[in-house]
């Protein structure tokens, strides 16, 4: 049965007071095209003034991953004007001059952390103006598909020098230090987003080959088959509130493999190649050194921290005895499990679990300190760091600068309804790791186990890529030094023109090549700007700006500045050095009138507690060591009410799933829970616990069959590394019983036996039962 949610009709009336809401920005609509290597998006902002004076509106938003602004168009009654790209100082001057002359002026300016202020001045009373902003954005690629994320809201983030307060019931303000963020204006954060502007999307998906699945953990979708191989993806409910990012999952039938190419407007060849990780063969089984870094800041409280804890417990189960691991939990303080790396022995893993049980979400997010502590644990031997965080931090360029230093790979699992995808993608890429992000309403534990299986053992290390037979061929940005299982290698490049040649790869212990054809398709221009957006994002992350430092650092900053300006001009894309501006002269513009300035508020991300950033005056929770406060002098606080409205969350999103599907989902979830539990109980030698050797072998076979039945094999599934370790244990136990070798053969073929294996117990009868189940050809 399909029930349609009631609150879908958007009316600009405040839910609580029934008074009309005067929204300066009424609508934010996302259109555009998603390709396997990035997206070319148009973001439509509709502004309307209900003021009696001219209006100046400021909308603040964060860029998606690997994104840059290209241009915008301002549309209103009788005009449609295109923006110009100018150095920031000139753009601001043009904006101010236009404003003073009474013209409609628009400025899009980028600040640190990929934050943008879109400012629109002199909207007349009653006038409606639309700004259509073109944004190039990256996607998270997987061997079999991609994940796309677009921020519909802005998360308040932690910064050591930020000031935050609740200024009215359910309304928070956050101010950032000016020396780092200049005149950036942040929005007010509304605990309840239901009175804010409406958001929605209408996107095209163009994938090679056929699409197996399009899904979203964030929004209800409607999917239409568009012309050719493209699909049209729309918001099923028609409109939504700005309290979470849009997340789209696309899975293809035959993988993302392939080359997109074309000629740009100047006739140069442009290409983007997606090379699946299996091109580089199997990964090595060398021992690894991993430090887990768990964000325990207040914004992680609730489901995210619980899920992260469980995920880490399962990761501990996947450690081999010659692996060494460490564990760091941080908020604005750091807690380290045992001060050094420890072996993956049963005892230390049990102690690590004990340590994790005591970890709860609380203070700020000093991510840089957590990472440097983890890097310190790894020491000179190097290794990998796995960070589990919502990434809700400001001042990320400085964190990146610190993270690059120690030369360790950082992998990120971002969790959040408005997680800082741009930052976490950069953090992983700049250190040679991989990142994944999730929404808090998805399972966090399975993906982290999956991510963990790739960590520490790239399928290719010391990678070098060459273009062969392509005139003027060049790859930029630089290819990553390593490739990991399940994550394809994505390369952007250019050539003198149409060409045919190949991409040759060499890595430690292997080489391969794939054909590369650059043909004359109109896609070239899109590929050019997507490449530019990647290059600019990488460079932006190296600009820490404003920090007091030595002459050498300042010279480096100037170099980055110059390079950024060059890149911006070459690709025609905005950056922190170049801004977009447009001035529209309308008939009857009156100079000199001072517009009223308004900032567009945004909704708190759905799963971030308002109180973790904005605390109202009220009884403080008591901390054991600190003396409790004895009194409050004045209180502005209104009678306590729910800080964080869950009204929308409690409603059915759009269509209730059919009962059968729900039951199926429940079974799936339970099975996954069981596997996680099994993974956590594994011994360091790869076997399951038991009192005798025979009992251990039997328990291990039962566990193996459970993983196989759950769709995991040696090389696929989240528990692939667990399967491999169970198999390795059984290889050494062939003498126990002839059935053992048959089970191994079965598993290597990716097959399993029917039966409720997790529920079975070891015992004298089990051998006979197994023998009866094993197919005849293996007996």
């Amino acid at each position, binding site marked *: 049965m399909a029930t349609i949610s009631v609150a879908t009709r958007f009316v600009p009336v405040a839910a609580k007071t029934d008074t009309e809401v005067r929204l300066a920005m009424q609508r934010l609509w996302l259109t555009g095209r998603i390709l396997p290597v990035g997206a070319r998006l148009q973001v439509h902002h509709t502004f309307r003034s209900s003021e009696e004076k001219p209006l100046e509106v400021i909308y603040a938003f964060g860029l998606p991953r690997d994104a840059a602004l290209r241009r915008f168009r301002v549309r209103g009654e009788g005009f449609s004007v295109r923006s110009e790209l100018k150095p920031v100082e000139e753009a601001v001057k043009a904006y101010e001059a236009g404003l003073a002359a009474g013209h409609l002026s628009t400025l899009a300016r980028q600040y640190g952390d990929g934050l943008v202020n879109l400012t629109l001045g002199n909207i007349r009373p009653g006038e409606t103006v639309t700004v259509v902003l073109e944004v190039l954005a990256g996607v998270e690629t997987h061997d079999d598909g991609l994940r796309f994320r677009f921020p519909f809201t802005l998360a308040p983030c932690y910064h050591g020098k930020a000031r935050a307060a*609740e200024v009215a019931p359910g309304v928070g303000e956050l101010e950032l230090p000016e020396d780092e963020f200049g005149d950036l204006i942040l929005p007010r954060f509304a605990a309840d987003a239901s009175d804010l502007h409406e958001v929605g999307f209408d996107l095209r998906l163009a994938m090679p080959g056929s699409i197996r699945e399009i899904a979203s953990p964030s929004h209800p979708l409607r999917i239409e088959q568009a012309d050719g191989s493209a699909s049209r993806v729309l918001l099923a409910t028609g409109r939504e509130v700005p309290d979470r990012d849009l997340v789209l999952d696309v899975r293809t039938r035959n993988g993302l493999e392939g080359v997109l190419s074309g000629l740009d407007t100047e006739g140069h060849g442009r290409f983007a190649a997606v090379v699946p990780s299996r091109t580089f063969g199997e990964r090595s089984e060398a021992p690894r050194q991993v430090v887990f870094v768990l964000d325990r800041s207040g914004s992680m409280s609730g489901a995210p921290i619980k899920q992260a804890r469980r995920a880490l417990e399962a990761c501990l189960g996947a450690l081999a005895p010659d692996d060494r691991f460490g564990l760091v939990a941080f908020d604005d303080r750091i807690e380290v499990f045992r001060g050094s790396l420890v072996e993956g022995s049963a005892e230390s893993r049990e102690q690590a679990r004990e340590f994790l049980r005591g970890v709860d979400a609380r203070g700020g997010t000093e991510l840089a300190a957590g990472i440097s502590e983890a890097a310190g644990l790894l020491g000179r031997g190097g290794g990998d760091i796995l960070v589990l965080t919502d990434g809700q931090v400001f001042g990320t360029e400085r964190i990146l600068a610190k993270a690059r230093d120690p030369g360790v790979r950082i992998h990120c699992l971002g969790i959040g309804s408005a997680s800082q995808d741009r930052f976490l993608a950069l953090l992983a890429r700049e250190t040679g790791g991989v990142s994944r992000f999730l929404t808090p309403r998805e399972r966090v534990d399975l993906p982290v186990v999956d991510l963990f299986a790739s960590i520490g053992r790239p399928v290719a290390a010391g990678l070098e890529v060459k273009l062969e037979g392509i005139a003027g061929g060049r790859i930029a940005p630089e290819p990553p030094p390593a490739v990991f299982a399940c994550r394809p290698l994505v390369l952007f490049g250019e050539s003198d023109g149409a060409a045919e040649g190949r991409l040759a790869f060499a890595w430690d212990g292997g080489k391969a090549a794939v054909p590369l054809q650059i043909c004359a398709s109109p896609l070239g221009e899109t590929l050019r700007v997507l490449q530019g957006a990647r290059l600019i994002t990488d460079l932006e992350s190296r600009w820490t700006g404003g920090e007091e430092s030595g002459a050498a650092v300042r010279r480096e900053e100037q170099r980055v500045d110059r390079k950024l300006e060059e890149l911006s001009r070459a690709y025609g894309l905005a950056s922190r050095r170049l801004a977009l501006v447009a001035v529209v002269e309308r008939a009857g513009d009156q100079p000199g009138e*001072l517009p009223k*300035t*308004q900032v567009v508020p945004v909704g708190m991300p759905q799963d971030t507690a308002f109180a*973790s*950033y904005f*605390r109202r005056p009220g009884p403080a929770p008591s901390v054991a060591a600190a003396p409790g406060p004895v009194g*409050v*002098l004045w209180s502005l606080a209104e009678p306590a009410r729910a800080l964080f409205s869950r009204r929308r969350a409690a409603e059915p999103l759009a269509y209730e799933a059919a009962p059968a599907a729900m039951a199926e989902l429940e079974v799936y979830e339970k099975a996954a829970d069981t596997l996680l539990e099994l993974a956590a109980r594994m011994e360091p030698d790869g076997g399951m616990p038991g009192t005798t050797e025979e009992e251990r072998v039997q328990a291990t076979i039962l566990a193996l069959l459970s993983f196989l039945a759950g769709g995991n094999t040696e090389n696929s599934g989240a528990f692939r590394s667990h399967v491999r370790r169970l198999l390795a244990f059984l290889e050494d136990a062939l003498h126990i019983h002839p059935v053992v070798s048959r089970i191994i053969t079965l598993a290597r073929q990716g097959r399993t036996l029917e039966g409720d294996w997790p529920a079975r117990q070891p015992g004298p009868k089990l051998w006979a039962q197994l023998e009866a189940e094993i197919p005849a050809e293996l007996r």
Partner: protein
Amino acid sequence: MTPGPAPAFSTVLDSDKFLPYAGDVRGREKLFSLQELAAETGLPARTIRFYIARGLLPGPAGAGRGAAYASEHLARLRAIRKLQAKGLMLAEIARELGGAKLEAGLPEPSAWWSYSLQEDVVVWVRAGLSPWRTRQVRTLLAELASRLGAEAQEEEKDDGND
């Protein structure tokens, strides 16, 4: 976004030589355009407009091309900068600057926690700080409290020895 009503100009500024909005303003005191005010204070024009809309700063005298800002505006902006440097947020500055001299009614109250560390030591902390700041302060207070406690015990011991 509903900033409170801007306090009436005459009640806000310390200077009693403040001049009324209209009339013979020009020629009696140095006046600034918005751009000049921006150049003088180092604040972007957009930021100044934002402050005006939030009621932190009165609007200009006159309208259209004749809109002008006086030295009081300059003084007010400098006062805002000073309070910002002290760590106050704009909402608090608006209260601080606007509230003190409001003639009608009481000033807007602000909430403070009082921590009694010892019988003779009380520390005041502004309520409604961000959670991480609150934790920093409380950690330090706990330290201070335990040190004060230790000192007191030492003294008692000393007293006993006498």
